[in-house]
């Protein structure tokens, strides 16, 4: 059983072409996610981002610059959210002089938090990344 996708969106004051680079260029990616990235932006190419010791691993699945890309997503060493198991879709839509970026993170394991091993392993597997995202950018959160 799969859980509901996690979705998120943001408006960025830059053209889709510029924003797209931040998903396919390693140097640009580490400006917002992770400390190291190895990105081989072609179908089947490697998608690897290290976020404070947590290794996000997957593959590029679809690339349609500058509109859309799809990567698989998992964590090295996690047997539930294993490398490549979930799917992250990135949609880039022009809006005025900027871009709406929408993330749809699908195929996540169901949220069986209480007393179910799969849910728990999944949960723990994701924590490092979550912690890293918080720890890496203290005070870097835009107010919402």
């Amino acid at each position, binding site marked *: 059983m799969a859980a509901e996708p*996690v*979705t*998120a*969106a*943001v*408006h*960025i*004051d*830059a053209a889709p072409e*510029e*924003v797209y680079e*931040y998903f396919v260029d390693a140097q*640009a990616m580490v*400006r*917002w*996610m992770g400390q190291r990235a190895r990105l081989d932006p072609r179908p089947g190419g490697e998608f690897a981002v290290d976020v404070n010791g947590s290794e996000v691993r997957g593959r590029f699945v679809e690339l349609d610059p500058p509109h859309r890309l799809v990567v698989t997503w998992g964590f090295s060493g996690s047997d539930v959210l294993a490398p490549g198991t979930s799917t992250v879709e990135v949609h880039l839509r022009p809006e005025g002089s900027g871009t709406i*970026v929408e*993330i749809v*993170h699908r195929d996540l394991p169901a*949220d069986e*938090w*209480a*007393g179910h*091993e799969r849910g*728990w*392993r999944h*949960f*723990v597997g*994701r*924590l490092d*990344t*979550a*912690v890293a*995202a*918080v*720890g890496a*950018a203290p005070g*870097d*959160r*835009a107010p*919402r």
Partner: protein
Amino acid sequence: MTAEEAFAALAEPRRRTMLLLVRDEPRSVNEIAAHFEISQQAVSQHLQVLRDAGLVDVRPDGQRRLYAIAPGGVREVRQFLSELWPERLDRLKGAVESDTRRGR
């Protein structure tokens, strides 16, 4: 508890292991400590951090105190996880817009 506290508590790998140990059944400090090479006192301190963060509950069982998972705290963490992508996108926005202004 706040989600931040929970994440701070879970940043320590041993504490994540401890949570997994008490996931399926309540356990005493002794049982938990048997899985680690650190002192029982250190294990107790880690458990206290998990308790303060609302991730485990403690109940007395005769002479012992049993630690068990606290599902309510976990749901809050789940909520926090669903905010993860928005947070990353905020950082993306910051990076792109500052780079663009610099004429990248």
